[in-house]
């Protein structure tokens, strides 16, 4: 008798837990997400000598659109990837990182530029793994001109800081994923700290010499050597051109123009980011809400359907063990209640799935709408960037030719060069 009663109690508790649990848990999925602790990029406390201050170029990020899905819009949308939006984000994120590095006062000129910008002390590139208003995951690689890898596909990810979504002003003041950018800045700083002052100075020289060698390969090569002993092999300065080397002086003048080109390209990206910043911030905030609701609905749906199914299964499968009328009635009532509760929970779970789909659709609409707004801006910035890079490349060809001409003239024997100086041969 005692055994039978305990079994009924067990059945009851299973069923009750099932049906009540479904109700309770579904009502308790509301998560309170507090604003995150803020990570700040370490600021320079003293001035870094000019010859050790490295210039940085952040290349526009890889949008991270999987090749196998590139043509399938629906499949991409399921992964919350909207190609034109990603292309805009690829530039936006690079600019945000640029601003973080620049404001830390730890570096020389920090600029955003296309892949074609090569001759710079430190190049940073990255790939977007996931980007929504709620979550951002990126991979970052940083390499210096000598060939050292500072960061290799290092992954940074995090949830949006809700504090930034709180007000419009807060959204303008701090990016919801600022913590990530600050972490990257601090990691770059940590990598830089491994190099001594001499290595930093050498890096600056390597950049200048690599540029000069590219412009006047015949005359200005040989100043750099590859140190095969180091791992990975590093480019090192073997000697320096004379301070009054005419070709070196001319390449230096061209280098100043190259810097101006990079500055102009950087201006394009900055303008682009400013243009999209406000609407992108709002899009992110709204998309955060939609994604959050979708995820809550999905989680709730999962819980309800599982518990509902469990309650139904328990009502049907738990073996009966009543040996008196009362206990049989009780057991039967419990089974009935359990199955009714289970079905209700299951149906409610299905409804939650439908809610989740609605939120997903809302997000999709939102993303598509923002994408159509930002796509022409991406085309414009890319067009201008390509035009300038192309025209600069054309110009460099012309300058290379002129330097070659100059070099050829330089090889003519001159009076002083061809004839041995009497004073030097006593």
């Amino acid at each position, binding site marked *: 008798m005692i055994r039978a009663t305990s079994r009924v109690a067990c059945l009851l508790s299973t069923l009750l837990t099932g049906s009540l649990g479904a109700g309770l848990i579904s009502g308790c999925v509301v998560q309170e997400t507090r604003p995150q602790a803020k990570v700040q990029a370490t600021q320079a406390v003293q001035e870094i000598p000019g010859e050790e201050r490295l210039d940085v170029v952040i290349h526009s990020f890889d949008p991270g659109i999987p090749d196998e899905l590139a043509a399938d819009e629906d499949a991409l949308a399921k992964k919350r990837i909207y190609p034109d939006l990603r292309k805009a984000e690829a530039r936006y994120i690079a600019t945000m990182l640029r*601003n973080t590095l620049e404001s830390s006062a730890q570096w020389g000129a920090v600029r955003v530029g296309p892949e074609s910008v090569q001759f710079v002390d430190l190049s940073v590139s990255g790939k977007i793994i996931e980007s929504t208003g709620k979550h951002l995951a990126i991979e970052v690689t940083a390499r210096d001109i000598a060939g050292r890898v500072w960061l290799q596909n290092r992954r940074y990810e995090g949830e949006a800081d809700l504090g930034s979504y709180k007000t*419009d002003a807060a959204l303008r003041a701090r990016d919801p994923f600022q913590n990530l950018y600050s972490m990257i800045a601090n990691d770059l700083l940590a990598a830089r700290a491994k190099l001594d002052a001499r290595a930093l100075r050498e890096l600056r020289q390597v950049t200048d010499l690599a540029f000069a060698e590219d412009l006047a390969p015949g005359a200005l090569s040989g100043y750099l050597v590859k140190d095969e002993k180091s791992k990975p092999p590093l480019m090192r300065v073997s000697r320096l051109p004379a301070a009054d080397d005419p070709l070196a002086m001319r390449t230096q003048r061209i280098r100043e123009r190259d810097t101006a080109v990079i500055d102009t390209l950087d201006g394009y990206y900055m303008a682009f980011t400013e243009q999209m910043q406000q609407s992108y911030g709002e899009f992110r905030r709204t998309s955060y809400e939609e994604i959050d609701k979708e995820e809550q609905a999905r989680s709730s749906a999962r819980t309800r359907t599982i518990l509902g199914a469990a309650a139904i299964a328990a009502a049907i499968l738990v073996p009966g063990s009543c040996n008196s009328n009362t206990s049989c009635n009780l057991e039967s009532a419990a089974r009935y209640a359990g199955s009714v509760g289970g079905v209700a929970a299951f149906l409610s779970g299905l409804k939650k799935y439908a809610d989740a789909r609605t939120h997903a659709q809302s997000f999709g609409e939102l993303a598509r709408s923002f994408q159509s707004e930002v796509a022409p801006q991406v085309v414009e910035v890319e067009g201008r960037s390509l035009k300038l890079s192309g025209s600069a490349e054309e110009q460099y060809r012309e300058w290379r030719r002129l330097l070659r001409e100059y070099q050829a003239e330089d090889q003519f024997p001159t009076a002083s060069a061809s004839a041995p100086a009497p004073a030097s041969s006593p």
Partner: protein
Amino acid sequence: MLPRVLHIGALIGAAVLTGCATSGSGTPSIPSPTSSPSSPLPSIPSPTSTPSAPSLPSPTSTPSLPSPPSTPSSSDRADGSADVGVPEGEDARTPEERRSGVDGKLDASLGTFDEQIRKEQQRTAQERDARAAGRAEAGAVDEAQRSGKQEGRDRSGDLRSEGTAGSGEKGEKGDAEAGEQSGDQTAGGAMPRGGGGASAGNAVPNGDDDDIIARRLRKAAESETDPELKEKLWKEYRDYKENTRGGS
């Protein structure tokens, strides 16, 4: 017959000896480097600077041409006759002069490029300024609309800081978080923004011809929220503009 053959021979010889110069003058006596169209003049218009002669490697003594030593250099010939020692197609100028020519070309090219870049940068800066001003205007309109419609709205901090740089939130009660945010502006999240303008009594000069300092002053004034400081910044901007105009 013989004089005619000699005449034709002389004509051909003259043409060959002038290095087939296509100057079109037809005169055989053009050894001067300035007449060769294959390389520009050393005095080619250079917008930036004169060719950097001091950086040339060799001294200014007469350089030896790659012609046989017995051949007199063009400078030795006062009669202006054809340079018989210079092979066909070769420039009669000294390497020094040719280097100057290349330098001239380089200078001209750099100057033209500088001008293009300057224009492009100016255009981008103007676009950014215009956009910032547009945002500031939109922000001000938005602010006015909100303040008219909503009092005690949940998102405290919106009203005052809308259309400003967010620094207006500092010290604002009831929104500690936003106040915290405004302190982070320099951490990279914030972009340069516009906001407001000078007081009505003091007309702000057109910013079209702003140089970099003027642009910075203008931007600082636009984004300043403290009216007193804002007015000071505008004054600074106006003074700067007047001074630069006076100076130029």
